[in-house]
């Protein structure tokens, strides 16, 4: 496995906001077809790392490779057709549009220029709609398909948030705290979903719920203060003294199960 080309690699990645260093010298390598989680106290730079990897913020230094191809200077929307899709920590849906339309748009995002022709209608048998239906089925949202996304319950909105990334049929899927604000039952369902997604995608996810992280990850990266502290399989990370120190008194947002 270790000789395989990583699906995503970051080399000495750094992000500065003005004089504030949010991310510094992060080197990361995601093996294909694995589930890779990123943990760390609040403010460790996890979301900034996601922003940089998806192109939402520009890297101040370092380089990013997707399947060996340098994508450091590729804009965020152009990374989607290359096979990266993400969900957000703070739910970000098309609130006034139906669930189905949300997912159809997300599926269309792979071939965005086909949507640019003002005379072309939405093909009722088109692939984007088929993908939307398939994702709704998978996320158990079919019964609310025609409801506006803004009217869904929190748990449903979080599932749809993940679905928006899934609908793009990415090779690499980035999930930013998929369980944030969820009730216990929903958390279990999300855990099962992420594990399931790991079968057809490479999954990189940020999570505070240690139960999920330690259970389903192949690799765990621990971050602190914008840097990678430790990286390795769950068992190794759990027993690392540095990690224990970093978390002492800091890990208020999740339970170590």
């Amino acid at each position, binding site marked *: 496995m270790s000789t395989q080309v990583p699906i995503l690699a970051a080399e000495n990645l750094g992000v500065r906001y003005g004089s504030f260093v949010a991310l510094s010298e992060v080197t990361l390598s995601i093996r294909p077809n694995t589930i890779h989680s990123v943990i760390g106290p609040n403010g460790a730079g996890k979301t900034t790392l996601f922003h940089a990897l998806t192109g939402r913020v520009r890297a101040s230094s370092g380089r990013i490779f997707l399947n060996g191809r340098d994508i450091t200077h590729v804009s965020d*929307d152009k990374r989607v057709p290359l096979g990266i899709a993400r969900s957000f920590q703070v739910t970000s849906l098309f609130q006034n549009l139906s669930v189905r339309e949300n997912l159809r748009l997300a599926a269309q995002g792979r071939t965005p*220029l086909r949507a640019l022709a003002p005379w072309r209608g939405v093909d009722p048998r088109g692939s984007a709609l088929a993908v939307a239906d398939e994702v709704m089925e998978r996320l158990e949202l079919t019964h609310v398909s025609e409801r506006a996304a803004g009217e869904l319950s929190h748990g449903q909105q979080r599932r749809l948030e993940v679905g928006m990334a899934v609908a793009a049929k990415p090779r690499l899927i980035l999930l930013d705290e998929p369980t944030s604000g969820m009730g216990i039952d929903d958390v279990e369902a999300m855990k099962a979903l992420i594990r399931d997604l790991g079968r057809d995608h490479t999954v990189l996810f940020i999570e505070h719920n240690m139960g999920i992280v330690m259970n389903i990850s192949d690799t765990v990266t621990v971050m602190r203060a914008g840097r990678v502290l430790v990286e390795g399989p769950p068992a190794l990370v759990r027993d690392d003294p540095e990690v224990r120190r970093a978390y002492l008194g800091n890990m208020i947002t999740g339970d170590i199960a």
Partner: protein
Amino acid sequence: MNRASLHFLLAALVAAALPLFMRSGTLASEVLIFAMAAAACNLLLGYTGLLSFGQGIFFGLGSYAVGLTLLHTSLPLSLALALSTLAGAVAATGVGWLSIRRQGVYFVMLTLAFSQFFYFLAYTFKDVTGGDNGLLNIPRPAIGPFTLGNSWSYYTFVAVLFLFVFAALQRVASSTFGRTLLAVRDNEERARAIGFPVRLFKITAFAVSGAVTGLAGALHALLIGVAPLSSIEYHMSESILIMTIIGGTGNLFASVLGAGFYVIVSDLLSSIWPRWLLLLGGLLVVVALFMQKGLWGLLERLVEALRSGRKSPVEAPVRPESEGRGI
């Protein structure tokens, strides 16, 4: 019947009914011309969430383009109109391309700045545009076998074009393109995150809107035989925006209502009271405060009230809609 065909039917009814209720073919033509301009503005405001003060530029350029073509060349009317449409589209692409580099207030200010810029350009180049006097004596040639000299025959011509343009805009609004615009309006960041090059979509929306507005400007110049400086003035952008907002931004037919209301009411009011704009201002305040879905929203509520057999609850509070969001 689906919503789109219902709205088209309503638009056709308006075009057919205007001659029955109005004495002046000129005024009736004006209603449909501004209905086109307002619907084009709605594509930006209602569908894309862009409050553009640049609509007057495209309207004015359309007026000048048709005037200059007919005065200085021997091209037929159809080509002159096509050139005006093109002029509107090209100008809108340029203005859009530069303005959408900024969002919110700065976007609005940029369109406003361009509006002033083009006005002074038209004012300065008197040799071309006629400056303050406008471009005078624009002929209204026949189109094929049809002469358009009579004000009602011209109205028929405008009505046919109006219905064609309205159907085309409906097609645009319901296409994958139009539905992506709605997504951009709803959540621009997400639209970008799922892969859409948002700027390209906004520029294209501008181009379509500018094309239709340019055509409307040309038809207006043919109607009055002049391409006046006022067509490219900031006030024209404002009028088009007001029509769009009064009508409501939820669908394209609402813009027909808005334009009709604005044109007819200003005509009535201006004959009784020279300070009629004051009343129109008051009306805009009422719309902004109490009926954000505009006249269309009012109509919807009336129909609903009639259906349920109750009296219309005019004072009913307006549900907080997303109409006013995201400039």
